[in-house]
């Protein structure tokens, strides 16, 4: 019994339980919204949201496909947060990466073997890093707030890419980039034989593998290397890090570059996926970049958590797509996600409640240390 209590009170378990509670509350809120708008169909439609992500092999493949870009932008935002920076510029970095991937891949089709897509993805990574470098340098050298620089580079990147598309790989009829032919796209790695129903093949491809490997590399970088430790130290306390001899300007610039590279690679992975998607010439910021923020928050900024969060949101997205059969607007999914994120802000409350219940002594200790506890939060 005592061992159970200890297990339940360990911080990993309590965070897991509080995340789970946030998810349950979010789903319940979505269900209530659906009940209000159309009570006769709500139950069946809600069941589709919950189940269709694993209903057949094709849908499972679609979940992996939708998860790929948001895992990458989630990693970008989450990595920057770990180093104390808020990278709201992931959208611009994503767009620059997507454009360079398409451009380089199409221009290098003459090269043998897998070179076109490898070069395309490398260009996307470099382009994203370059676009992340701008707010990084401005922050480090000119003390420009990275949030505002990120917002500005989002727009500059979007307009610049629109301009460059019309000068290079432009499809005038559709007002978008040219299609990338199959030779220039990321290989399917045999997924097309697994994730399909009859003739309907899902769009999943090697991109999800690249995203997963990136997450693992990022985990190693953050948790197992001196460099990662330095970056995190800067995020936790800049002054202390400087006192310890860490070059904080170098850390800021490098972590924005890495974050940008991740977002840029995400753009490359989406547009070289071979799913027939082209980059449109429209004056709208890429939503994938902003979707990285909730993914990172839900994954608590840890690389592995972000992979799970990306898969979870993609799962709901596929469910919402299939739910349209019942004449519900798919925006229910975003409402659910928003509520989940909002209630993940309650995590501290749940956590303290659990810890307070299970280990009464611990709460006392915390109060003595002067750490925040939610019980004391009641009005003043």
């Amino acid at each position, binding site marked *: 019994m005592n061992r159970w209590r200890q297990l339940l009170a360990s911080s990993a378990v309590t965070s897991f339980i509080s995340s789970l509670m946030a998810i349950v509350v979010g789903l319940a809120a979505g269900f209530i919204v659906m009940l209000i708008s159309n009570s006769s169909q709500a139950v069946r439609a809600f069941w589709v949201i919950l189940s269709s992500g694993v209903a057949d092999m094709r849908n499972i493949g679609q979940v992996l496909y939708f998860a790929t870009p948001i895992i990458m932008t989630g990693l970008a935002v989450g990595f920057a947060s770990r180093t104390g920076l808020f990278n709201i510029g992931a959208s611009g970095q994503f767009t620059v990466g997507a454009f360079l991937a398409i451009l380089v891949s199409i221009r290098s089709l003459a090269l043998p073997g897998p070179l076109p897509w490898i070069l395309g993805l490398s260009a996307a990574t470099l382009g994203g890093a370059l676009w992340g470098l701008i707010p990084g340098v401005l922050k480090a050298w000119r003390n*420009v707030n990275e949030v505002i620089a990120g917002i500005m580079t989002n727009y500059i990147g979007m307009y610049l890419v629109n301009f460059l598309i019309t000068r290079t790989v432009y499809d005038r009829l559709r007002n978008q980039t040219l299609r990338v032919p199959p030779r220039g796209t990321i290989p399917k790695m045999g997924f097309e034989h697994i994730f399909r129903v009859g003739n309907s093949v899902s769009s999943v491809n090697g991109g999800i593998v690249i995203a997963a490997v990136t997450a693992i590399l990022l985990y190693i970088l953050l948790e197992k290397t001196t460099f990662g430790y330095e970056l995190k130290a800067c995020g936790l306390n800049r002054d202390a890090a400087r006192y310890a001899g860490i070059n904080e300007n170098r850390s800021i610039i490098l972590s924005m570059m890495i974050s940008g590279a991740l977002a840029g690679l995400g753009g490359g992975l989406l547009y070289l996926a071979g799913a027939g998607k082209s980059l449109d010439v429209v004056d709208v910021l890429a939503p994938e970049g902003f979707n990285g923020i909730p993914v990172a928050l839900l994954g608590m900024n840890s690389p592995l958590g972000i992979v799970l969060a990306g898969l979870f949101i993609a799962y709901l997205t596929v469910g919402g797509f299939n739910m349209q059969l019942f004449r519900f607007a798919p925006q229910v999914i975003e409402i659910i996600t928003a509520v989940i994120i909002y209630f993940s802000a309650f995590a501290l409350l749940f956590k303290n409640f659990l810890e307070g219940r299970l280990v009464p002594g611990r709460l006392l200790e915390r109060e003595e240390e*002067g750490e925040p506890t939610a019980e004391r939060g009641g009005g003043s």
Partner: protein
Amino acid sequence: MFFSIPLLIVALGGMFAERSGILNIALEGIMIIGAFCGILFIHTYQAALPGQPALLLAILVAAASGVLAALPHAYASVHLKANQIISGTALNMFAPAFAIYTARMLRTVQQIPFINQFRIDTVPFLGDLPVIGPLFFQRSYITTYMGFILLVISWVVLYKTSFGLRLRACGEHPQAADSVGVNVYALRYAGVAISGALAGMGGLVFIIPTSTNFNATVSGYGFLALAVLIFGQWRPWRILGAAFFFGLMKTVASSYSGISFLSSLPINSTVYKMIPYLATLVALAYSSQSSMAPRAGGVPYDKGNR
């Protein structure tokens, strides 16, 4: 003008939240909620009400809905001491989804049309003045004047009243404020509520002159207002300057073809669209050395800390 005024109003809103110590990244979402409720009000009652009263009522509706939308953010960041980015992001995500979902459930399409009958052709007397007349008092909207009035009110409230002094104290050093009997929680709630009201209004003010239907978006103006707020160094008059600087650049970018000198240059139109953002970035690089951000911004207030 049409670009600057909503930026001004929303950035002033952000200022009230941030000077009280709460980051409000949800300005974009609150703008959408405000615009949605305001436009829905106009759409529903347009036939029954004459132009200007309908607009004024709609602005009140937008402000009230903005306050409602901002309250969950205030609760999470004040009482729950949560990370203020989290609830802001949640609100930004919720707002467009809510607007589209409700619109589609009510009218099956997501756009809400309205008839623009709010333009004032010329203000009596003032419109006849030379130079300023055509510039400020002809073909204008009541919302433009409202923007300036709000600016003056904000400045007075923030710097000339005890409420403003206490609010600023909560943003700089809440422990010190508390020690002299200021209710930090209440003031932070007030700060966020005011920011919700202004951002909600700003959303409607942005939509009215530039469009005839509302499509669940304010084109990233909430984030731009955040940029204007930082560029304006959290000070009302500087925010006005920043909003006008940005609005001027934006006007040049959208009307360059009318200026013969600019349109004769061999430059693509998309390059002009980049100018406002590039100019802001350059201006920031030369003006950001001394940041005057509220010191306790983004830090939850905990009485136990010193």
